[in-house]
Every structure is written in structure tokens, then in C-alpha cells.
């Protein structure tokens, strides 16, 4: 079994118009910049994939990554907890102009909904957002005298993930706090596409230390000198 693909363009070829795309990362940590930019390249060359729903904790920063996707006009909707950043122009402008939809989800609920999508749990109850406007229209229930909101699973057509180590079966590790949403998104997407920094032979990751088992991974591409989003932003890099 070999899930590696030749290059970035091949890796992201599975993303279709109108797809829901989960993108790993929290701020710059774990952002799969090269996969995102390959998706933008394809959109610029072919006009596809457009009308995307993007799931990420944030809604882009500066003029690279998800922000550059929004600038390019590929994103119809963001599902996120915190669409602000040190330079949130891309999302803010489109949002205030009514050109992009926003589903705002509390961060823990976002994580749990994605996990539920991956774990075959169609709905769960959480205390989070009870009594607030973010619970409007959602069923509520009482357990042991406390009130909870029913939340639904969140799934995706494709997840884009940045890993540290990978083998060709798709076993992954993540670097430090770049882990964040990535193991959950890998579970919740029909097709999980990974850019990995270092490739090892199967067995090269201690079986006890695999963070995402290969069953959750479909396509892997090697990106040796992966950029770090936050570092790029501080260098003033723009992908435009």
C-alpha cells in the first residue's frame, strides 16, 4: 500500500467545486500552506475549485494561506470560531460586503463536532453556548437539572493537513502545537490529503507514537521545506 502522490497539484486534485474543505492549523501552527497555495494555483489556472466551504479555527491572516483563498474568491463560506487575526482584511472585507457566509462556532464545539463527524456520532449535547445567541434554533435538553444544547456532527469532503513525519500507509505525527485540529479533521473528511515534512518507512514511527493512524489518511505528498504561516506573515510575504 502506498498513499503517496507525485506532487502538490496531484494531491489537491480531489477538491471539487462546492466542496467542504477542512484545513488544519490554529493560527499559523499546522497550516498546510503549500497545499493551500496549490489549490489557489489550480483555481487561478482553471477557475476551479470554487464556492468552497472552508472549516478552520480562524479565517485567514495577511495575504497568504486561507486569506489568499478568500482574496482569490474561492470561498463561499467559512465555518470557524475566531475570524480575526493580526491582519484579517481578506475575510473582513468580503464579510462586510456580504460576499462570504460565516458560521460562527465556539471553539470547543467546533472541535467536538469535527470529532463526532469522524466517530460516527451524529449529534451530542454540550453546555457550551446554552442561553446565548449561538444556540438559537438548536434543540436543548436537560440532564440532571442542567441545560445543554444539541450540536450536530461536522464532516468534510476533503481535509488538508500538515504533518511532521509520515509513512506511506499514512501514519502521521505532528510537530508541537501544530497538532491542534488536524487529527480530528483527518477523521472527519471523506478524503484526507497530507503534506508531510519527513517520510519514513513503515515502522519508522514507533506504533505507540502514531498520532493519526493511516486509516484516516488517503493522499500524502512530501513537502520538505514547508513554510510556517506565521513566519511568512512576519516576513511580509503575500501570495497574490
Amino acid at each position: 500500500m502506498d498513499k503517496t502522490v507525485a506532487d502538490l497539484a496531484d494531491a489537491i486534485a480531489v477538491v471539487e467545486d462546492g466542496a467542504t474543505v477542512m484545513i488544519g492549523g490554529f493560527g499559523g501552527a499546522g497550516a498546510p500552506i503549500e497545499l493551500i497555495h496549490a489549490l489557489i494555483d489550480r483555481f487561478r489556472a482553471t477557475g476551479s475549485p470554487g464556492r468552497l466551504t472552508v472549516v478552520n479555527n480562524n479565517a485567514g491572516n495577511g495575504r497568504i494561506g486561507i486569506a489568499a483563498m478568500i482574496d482569490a474568491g474561492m470561498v463561499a463560506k467559512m465555518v470557524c470560531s475566531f475570524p480575526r487575526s493580526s491582519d484579517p482584511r481578506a475575510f473582513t472585507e468580503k464579510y462586510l460586503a456580504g460576499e462570504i457566509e460565516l458560521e460562527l462556532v465556539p471553539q470547543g464545539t467546533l472541535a467536538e463536532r469535527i470529532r463526532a463527524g469522524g466517530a460516527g456520532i451524529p449529534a451530542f449535547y454540550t453546555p457550551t453556548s446554552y442561553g446565548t445567541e449561538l444556540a438559537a434554533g438548536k434543540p436543548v435538553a436537560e440532564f440532571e437539572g442542567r441545560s445543554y444544547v444539541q450540536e450536530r456532527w461536522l464532516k468534510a469532503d476533503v481535509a488538508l493537513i500538515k504533518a511532521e513525519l509520515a509513512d506511506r500507509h499514512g501514519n502521521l505525527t505532528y510537530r508541537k502545537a501544530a497538532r491542534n485540529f488536524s487529527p480530528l479533521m483527518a477523521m472527519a473528511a471523506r478524503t484526507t490529503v497530507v503534506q508531510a515534512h519527513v517520510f519514513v518507512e513503515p515502522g519508522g514511527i514507533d506504533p505507540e507514537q502514531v498520532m493519526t493512524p493511516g486509516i484516516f489518511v488517503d493522499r500524502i505528498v512530501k513537502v520538505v521545506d514547508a513554510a510556517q504561516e506565521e513566519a511568512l506573515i512576519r516576513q511580509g510575504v503575500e501570495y497574490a
Partner: protein
Amino acid sequence: MKLANAQIAWRAAQDIEDGAYVNLGIGFPEMVAQFQPSGRAAIFHTENGILDFGEAPAAGEEDWDLINAGKKAVTLKPGAAFFHHADSFAMVRGGHLDVAILGAYEVAETGDLANWSTGPKGVPAVGGAMDLVHGARRVAVITDHVTKDGKPKLVKRCSLPLTGVGCVTRVYTSLAVIDIVSSRFVLREKLPTLSLDELQSLTGAELLVEGEIINLNVPEI
């Protein structure tokens, strides 16, 4: 004439693709792993938190922290991974397995499966059976076509407590290969020595025929 268990397991193994993620139920289904066609390597999942385990170790070489769901000692293949029970059943329930192959007391034409309880006597035990019937893209059963008393195990409606509703998609028996399509048994393969009427008389619900019935040819094992 009927297939031996090893031959049923062999037949089931032929339908497992290279690289498929597979869970084999405890007992008879575990035998399927022995008969993968050469050139194919499925990745086996066990409920207690291993992907890509291999054969039993030599006697005396067992590590009892390295066991499968049947509590038998196993080994690891390169690329194996350990994980906890919630992640393990996320793989099951979340639809990440390609195939689950299970034993059965009864299978109904509706796809209902009874394989965990023979009734209210004794100590009940369910293990992961009720989870495994949900989530795998294909839930197959391997079983003798009839009980030891000669009664059909493929029935119109299960009489024993259910494991799951409408979950089985294919049944490999000692006599035939049968798909479940739109709550009906559809005969795909049967032993060439057996007439359709004979097979029907051993089956508790109508067997539909769509197109050719293939001869169920299995090597001596």
C-alpha cells in the same frame, strides 16, 4: 457436499482488496486473514486498539500486552499503530473500515443480523458486535448455510435477539454466496453440485436470481 470453514474463509478473502481496512470477528472469521490472495495485503483492525497486526507469535514468544479482541497474542507488521478504545471505535462507527466479516446465528433477508445471544439463558455478552455492524462500508457474514440441526440460518426474519438492523450486505455460506439487496436475498454463487431447488429448500427465505449464477469454486484446503 459443503465447504469446510477454511474454504468459506478462503472465498470471503478473495473479495478483500489490497490495502483494505478490515475487522474480522472473534473466532471463525479470524481465519479469513490466512487466505489473502498473494500480492494483496489488507490492514487488520482489532477493537482493542491496533491497526496492522499480524500472525500469532511462536509459542513462548507471546507478549500479553499485544493481543487481539479475542485475547489471542498477535504480532505487529511494519506500519502498525496503537490507539485507545474511543479512537478504535471511531474507526468502526465512523465508517472508516472497508469490510467487517462476522459470524452469525441468523441472517434475515432484510439484512438483520443475530450473532450475539441465543436467548435469555446464561450470561449475556455482546463485545463489539453491535458496533461492528455499523460503520464498515461492507458488512459480510461467513457461516454454515444451516444449523447443526439442519435448520436454515438465512431466514425471513430473525427469531434470536438482533445484533443490528439492516446491516449485512453479503453472506458467504458453506453452499453459496448471497447478496442482500433491497431487503431480499440475491443468489450470486452456489456449489455446482447443488441445484437451485436444493439450495432454496435449505434457505428460510426466497432466493432471487439476477443474471448468471456463478459456480462457487473453492480449492481444497
